[in-house]
């Protein structure tokens, strides 16, 4: 399986540049997920790799060979489309074998390949149905089967699960994770859903407005986000951000906000702090711990007024306010919290992320 490399890849429509020089290496047999909000250019990158969009400048290398000017079929990639794009006049078997029939494969091999893939995806009984007679999940599987039958070295998926309902999406996500281990391929997957990205990807590329924000494993992205955008994008519910001023008191760093001050872990690159000490701090909703009565003495807490309590089962999401700033808190549903209560929360210093307020880069 090839190593795919982007070298200073750019895409512009007229004077509007939408991909600003992407440099990226996707290793052999890796599941790479491109994630970002809509319009960030992630689909465009996938389509450039597929050969459906031209490359304005830069190179796409596959094992060192420049493929950026080749026709899609010459690139050894197969693609699963967001809306499935099944040929409505062909049955499932014909849909899956279309590429092989065009390439004039012998009939015996075509039927063998179809049977193999159909068995892997559980499509054996559906081979003679037309797409119109299939459910959403089945169509999704056929679309995947059509890409797998070709046995291309890389599989491109453009938001393949976004049209399924919530339950089916989770189910297909699991199936995808299982299939992924069965096939030895590079998979490049585009999604706007960070949960899909976290659960499926070996590596995640977070995109924003045509640039890569961070490239790394799900753990790296979650634990050490490179900037405020990545921190806010990865993780559900999203991170809370508050403006604060960092002050050093007795060799300890404290983050002062309008209504509370919290200790921050020792920063290794303090020299990157703005001289005014003005930063944005980020706290994950799960990092806020309610202070039990015995602990009341602790001085570094923040008091939050509970506005809404969203009960989701064993966990509840509290939407709270501190001095007009909205803060999300994820807590165990027991003990329960009442709307209108003022509750004290504490945060471990190591759970507080510090970002430069102007550049939004993380400071560790």
């Amino acid at each position: 399986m090839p190593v795919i490399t982007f070298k200073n890849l750019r895409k512009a429509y007229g004077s509007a540049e939408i991909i600003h020089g992407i440099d990226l290496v996707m290793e052999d047999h890796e599941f790479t997920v491109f994630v970002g909000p809509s319009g960030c250019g992630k689909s465009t990158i996938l389509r450039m790799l597929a050969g459906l969009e031209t490359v304005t400048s830069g190179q796409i290398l596959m094992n060192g060979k420049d493929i950026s000017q080749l026709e899609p079929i010459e690139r050894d990639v197969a693609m699963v489309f967001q809306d499935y794009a099944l040929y409505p006049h062909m049955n499932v078997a014909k849909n899956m074998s279309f590429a092989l029939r065009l390439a004039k494969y012998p009939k015996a091999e075509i039927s063998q390949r179809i049977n193999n893939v159909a068995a892997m995806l559980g499509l054996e009984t559906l081979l003679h149905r037309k797409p119109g007679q299939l459910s959403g999940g089945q169509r999704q599987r056929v679309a995947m089967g059509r890409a797998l039958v070709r046995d291309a070295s890389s599989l491109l998926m453009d938001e393949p699960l976004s049209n399924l309902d919530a339950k089916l999406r989770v189910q297909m996500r699991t199936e995808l994770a299982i299939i992924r281990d069965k096939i030895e391929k590079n998979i490049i997957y585009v999604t706007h859903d960070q949960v899909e990205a976290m659960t499926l990807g070996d590596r995640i590329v977070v995109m924003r407005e045509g640039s890569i924000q961070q490239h790394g494993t799900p753990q790296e992205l979650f634990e050490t986000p490179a900037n405020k955008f990545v921190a806010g994008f990865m993780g559900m519910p999203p991170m809370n951000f508050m403006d604060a001023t960092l002050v050093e008191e007795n060799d300890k760093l404290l983050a002062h906000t309008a209504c509370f001050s919290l200790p921050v872990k020792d920063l290794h690159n303090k020299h990157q702090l703005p001289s005014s000490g003005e930063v944005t701090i980020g706290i994950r909703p799960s990092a806020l711990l309610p202070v039990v009565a015995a602990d009341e003495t602790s001085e570094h807490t923040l008091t939050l007024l509970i506005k809404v309590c969203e009960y989701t089962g064993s966990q509840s999401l509290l939407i709270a306010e501190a001095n007009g700033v909205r803060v999300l808190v994820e807590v165990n549903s027991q003990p329960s919290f009442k709307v209108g209560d003022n509750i004290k929360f504490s945060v471990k210093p190591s759970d507080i992320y510090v970002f430069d307020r102007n550049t939004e880069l993380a400071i560790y």
Partner: protein
Amino acid sequence: MTKKTVGRPKNPAFYALMVALLVMSLGPIIMMVTTSLKLNVDIMSDASSLWFSPTLENYETVLCDVLWYEPVNVDYCNPTFSRALGNSIFIALMSTAITLILGCMAAYALVRFKFMGRGTISMTSLMMRMVPPAVLLVPVFGIWTFNYGLDGTFAGIVLVYVAMNLPFVIWILQSFIVQVPMQLEEAAKMDGANPLQIFFLVVLPVITPGLAAAAIFTFRIAWNEFLLANALLNRDTRTVPVTIVNSLTEYDIDWGVIMATGMLLAIPPIIFTFVASKQIITGMTAGAVKG
């Protein structure tokens, strides 16, 4: 007013209107059918026209040279009609086929390819359709006859019908092709189809209903057209409508035969429409993409 009558017009004028419309639409057809089944004696007689002994003699006269037996009542077999029927079928099918082939390709190009003057071409082609055939008649006749020698040939009339119907067919098919999801074509491209394969193996099957609608339309126009056919065709290449009109002479009008011819003229379009409309199934693209 009781509740029962709600939504049911009870006004006698409504029924009178219905009957009038029915008589107006069915009347001529019934008259054609009955007349075609009558002998000339019955047609000309003043007696009630509903009482007569039906006969197929008129049809035998019309079809005398294609029948497998020799009709006893036909003294002289005039092959004009059967020849005209053959001409009509040939001209209508040929012009339909050529119009569809050219039309679907042109429509595809106009929808999918970006080139200069695309919108203008699309609009002007439709405007051509607005020109009445009578206006075209004289110049076409002149050019066909004196410049190209196409008068009286099948090629000449087929060319005119193709030119006449192409704009409308392009227009119909454009609206169908626009609805073919772009992703479908991209999927085919990823599967290694070249542009021609994408067009013939993916796009055309999906727009079959559009092709069928366009075919019915084109066939009917070519089949019924009289004005240009009358001017451009000669004795041997005449179509049925022209033949019928030409059989109205000042010496003899054989109503029975004319009506039988009319009946036979009506049948092929019915068969063609029936066959073609089977292709018009809604939801051809069902399942292609998430709706």
